[in-house]
Structures are given as C-alpha cells and as structure tokens.
C-alpha cells in the first residue's frame, strides 16, 4: 500500500487545522475493497467484508468460470491470521 497526501487547509481558523482521526479512516475499507475488486474481478459493495463472505465471493466467481485470472485463489481461504 502507498499513501498519498492532499492538503486542503481549513479556511475557518488561523492554523488551517481540521479534525484528524475519523476522516482518515473513512476511505480505508473502500480502498481494500477496490484492491480486491482489481485482483479478483469481484464487485464488493458491502461491509464488513468477513473472511467467509470474501471466500464465498471467490468460490462463486470460480463456479461461474469468471475467476480465471485468480487461479486457485480460494486456496488462500485457509490462511487464517
């Protein structure tokens, strides 16, 4: 993962500061979902993305013959932690 920075100082105070924490966490699930979509050919539209849901999406893709470029990606399902 590479992290980029875009600065948009707030016009509402002298230092231009904003709240931190929460704002940074919001796009993270979408970033992971997009990476998985790119790698697997899935279309993830819902969180949380549990290991069970992800594996089942991959198995469904394979069953439909659309998971060709993933090889036996479902083998990774046993990876645990």
């Amino acid at each position, binding site marked *: 993962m590479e992290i980029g920075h875009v600065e948009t100082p707030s016009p509402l105070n002298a230092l231009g500061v904003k709240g931190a924490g929460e704002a940074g966490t919001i796009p993270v699930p979408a970033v992971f979902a997009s990476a998985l979509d790119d790698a697997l050919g899935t279309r993830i539209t819902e969180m949380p993305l*549990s*290991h*069970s*849901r992800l*594996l*089942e999406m991959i*198995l469904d893709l394979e069953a439909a013959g659309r998971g060709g470029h993933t090889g036996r990606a*479902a*083998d990774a*399902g*046993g*990876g*645990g*932690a």
Partner: protein
Amino acid sequence: VKPAPFGYLAPATREHALAALRRYGSDAKVLAGGQSLVPMLAMRLARPAVLIDLNPIGDLAYVKPARGGLAIGAMTRQASAERDPLVAARLPLLAEALGWIGHPQIRARGTVGGSLAHGDPAAELPAVAVALDARLTLASTRGERTVHARDFYTGYLTTALETDEILAEVRFPPQPPGAGWAFAEVARRHGDFALVGVAVLVQADADQQVADARIVFTGVSHGPLRIAAAEQALTGRRPIRAAAAEIRRLVEASVEPDADIHASSRYRRHVAGVLAERAMLTAASRMRVPS
C-alpha cells in the same frame, strides 16, 4: 460479570472428590483447570450449586508408560504434557495438537482431562483422542469403567460421563510404528477456538501403500468427526499425493458444519477440505515404511 453464588469444595483425595460428587450429582460441577468452566460461571452459562475442585489432588497429574503407549492423569496440565519427552516420543500427534490449544497461559492451567471432559465442539484433544483410539477411565464411588473416545462424545458439550463420575485418566495406545501424523487448524487468530481443525494419522505397509488412515475433524460438528469415506479412499494409495484432490472432495461432501458468528458453513466446509489435504501431505511426509 460475576458468577452466581456457589459452594466450594476442595477435597484432598480422589475418594473424597468422588464422595462429594456422589452427594451433589448434577448440582455440582467439577473444576479442573477452569479455562472453560470459570468463564462459563462468570457469564452465568453454568450455575452449579457446588464446585468440586480437583486441583488439590496431586496424584491425578502424571504421564506414565502404559503398554507401549501412555497413561495420562486427567489433571495433567496441557503445558506439562506438551513438554513431556514421553509424549513427544510416543504420541507426536498429541504433542503437536497440544501446541494449538489457546495460549501458553491457558495451557499452563488447562488440563488434558478438563479439555476432554468438557468436550467443546472446537477443541483439539477430543479429535486427537478419537484419532489415536484413546480409552477414557471414568471413576465414581461405584468403581471405574473404560469408554473408547469414539463412544465418549454423544452430543453438543455432552459426554458419556454420568453425574457422579469424573474423568480420571486417558490411556493412549502407542502411535503405530512408522505412522505419519499431522494436526492442522485454522482460527481467526492463533489461540482462538478452531474454526476447523483436523488430526491425521497414516500408516504405511512394506510396499509404501497406506495400510490404515485416520482423519478426524474438530469444529465442523457437535464433537469430533471421523470421515470414514476419506480414510477408505486413502487406504491402499501410493503415492499419497495422488489422492489429495479426492480426499478434499470427499471431506467437503461429508461435513455439514454449522454457521456461527465466526464463520459461515460454506467457509468451514471449504477450509475442512483444504486442511485435510494439507494435513494428509504433512502426515505422508513423516511416514516411515516399517522395517
């Protein structure tokens, strides 16, 4: 969360413990290492009137040779068994599985007999006991009886133990000479309860064919689950690797795991197939042809 009030007995001898259990029966729970019972008390899933604590009874903890195999006292700590050279030499499958139980702190208190008697559907030791054809010694004031591990687990958290009986000892026959073994498990984090675990034992004949196989799962049923179809498919095979895909398919077709908050049924079934294949190949790599 705190337990409901309970009486506490700490008998100094096995005889006193059995007499107390005779007296209180189903009103009592037997406390071994407490790694399952104490949380259940705290969550009030268990509300016994009396706890009978076996910890003061030192002579229930031992590992000793028995007919080529081992007799293990019920109060033997999992950590002691894990480090015992006799266990490593005679029952490497058990030694490997012990390392999968919880964390070192849990194994320092948790006992071999406690895990077997509690019979959690995701526990490691019941599957190992079935795979190794262990025999459990159940004691009461009426005397002792012996039950095969495969007959001991009768339902969800339910065993053949009567209300006046304690599990006193587990006897393991020796692992067959040259048999390959493996215990494999998937949990969300190491030390969590297994989502799926499997114990595999494969024995070769002089022609390097599989003479006998054991494939026993935990986490996919109410108790340990032997997959006879996969065992039979493995028997007579050489090389074992050629059977991998078939074993995986047979396992997936044979298990009907429940879904819960930790994993779906489909996930568990898939992982069961993958684990069976992995464990089987590991066991095969450790197999030695009898000389």
